């Protein structure tokens, strides 16, 4: 996400331009789509290729990445950083059974963490952005709350996980729409365009308007700032991952979603590919054994390898 110097001051957007660090945030709106499984698997795969990776469990209301990594008990967690028991986020990073992979575990104090206040969230985001690791993967919770959307927007890129089902697709569209509204709101707040801020606020209340009609309304109102907002939206380029694909039609669905999002939400999604459905994911969880360790040569593991290569090294 390239930004002008002044725009780099917008606190919640991706600001690591020029820094040798990538943050992948895994989100998608609906619960049960496999976000945590995908976060854990991407992290294991990336670490196995010799990278220094930190996995952060930012599913504030339901953390369980440690279970996906086969870890039962840990001492420190995210809550210790939020409550100032440790001065820095990096102090909560713990070693995992995988070489090069560290984990920042979510806290068990769910009521407190799930309702994190704005300043605590800003502190967390600031520490994630300046985290001393080349590769950071953030697992985001369910829903399109400000917390989830803001964690998604700090990434470069965000990975939207969708199952080939109407419920999941519906939630993913709402999630993307929320991201768009959030970007517009952050920009209008930053540039202090009060009349546009009120238009955006009314749009949030009236969800029936399309992004297209909304942007055109802004263009007719103020062309200069409309241009800035349009450019800001074009910088938002998340990736799409279809999980639990059962056939070729499910794979093609990914391309179709990209097309619909481009036409109706004016966002360029990048389709990363599809992870096949595999019943053994369930068995590996039951056995508390990370799937990639138990079935390294399966179709699912090979898909993760190709997706990591595509994401990290730009290979097709």
């Amino acid at each position: 996400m390239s930004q002008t110097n002044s725009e780099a001051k917008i606190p919640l957007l991706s600001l690591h331009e020029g820094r040798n660090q990538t943050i992948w945030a895994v989100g998608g709106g609906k619960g049960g789509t496999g976000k945590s499984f995908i976060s854990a698997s991407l992290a294991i795969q990336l670490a196995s290729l010799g990278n220094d990776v930190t996995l952060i469990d930012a599913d504030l209301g339901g953390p369980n990445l440690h279970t996906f990594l086969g870890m039962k008990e840990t001492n420190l967690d995210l809550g210790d950083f939020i409550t100032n028991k440790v001065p820095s986020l990096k102090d909560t990073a713990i070693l995992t059974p995988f070489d090069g992979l560290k984990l920042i575990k979510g806290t068990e104090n769910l009521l407190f963490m799930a309702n994190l206040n704005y300043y605590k969230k800003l502190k967390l985001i600031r520490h994630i952005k300046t985290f001393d690791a080349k590769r950071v993967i953030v697992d985001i919770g369910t829903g399109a709350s400000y917390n989830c959307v803001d964690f998604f927007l700090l990434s470069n890129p965000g990975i939207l996980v969708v199952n080939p089902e109407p419920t999941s697709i519906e939630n993913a569209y709402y999630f993307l729409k929320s991201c768009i509204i959030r970007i517009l709101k952050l920009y209008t707040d930053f540039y202090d365009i009060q009349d546009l801020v009120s238009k955006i606020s009314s749009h949030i209340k009236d969800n029936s308007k399309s992004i297209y009609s909304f942007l055109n309304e802004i263009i007719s109102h103020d062309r200069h700032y409309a241009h800035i907002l349009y450019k800001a939206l074009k910088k938002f380029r998340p990736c799409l991952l279809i999980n639990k694909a059962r056939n070729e039609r499910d794979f093609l669905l990914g391309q179709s979603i990209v097309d619909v999002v481009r036409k109706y939400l004016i966002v360029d999604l990048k389709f990363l590919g599809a992870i096949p459905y595999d019943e053994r994911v369930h068995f590996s969880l039951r056995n508390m054994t990370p799937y990639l360790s138990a079935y390294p040569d399966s179709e699912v593991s090979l898909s993760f390898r190709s997706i990591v290569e595509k994401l990290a090294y730009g290979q097709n």
Partner: protein
Amino acid sequence: MKIKNVKEMDYYELLNISSTASPQEIERAYHLCKATYQAGSIAHYSLISEKERKTVLDRIEKAYNTLSDSKKRRLYDLQMFKSKEDIKEKAFFRKSMEKLVIEDTADKVGIWRKLKYMLFSPKK
């Protein structure tokens, strides 16, 4: 700045292909777009209405009918890109590429055999 809705997109934008797309690319894009917007497809679930879906599908058909016919496509390109010099050049380039592709499709080995003969045949 121009933000277009689906009704204002040109045929290339609608099928998400470049203006220099080959006939094969057009065919592929058409089938994908048709599958995306057909009734019962979940790709557009909850985002667009039934009326919008039918409008898009209608335009996809028109786009394909025009772009898959080389004569219609040439006329469409001329109308579309009248004022854009750089795109005119691209359209010309595509026209010459298209010829190559057609020759290639009619006799798949023909052109390569000819090329091989030209490049590697022993000189007399």
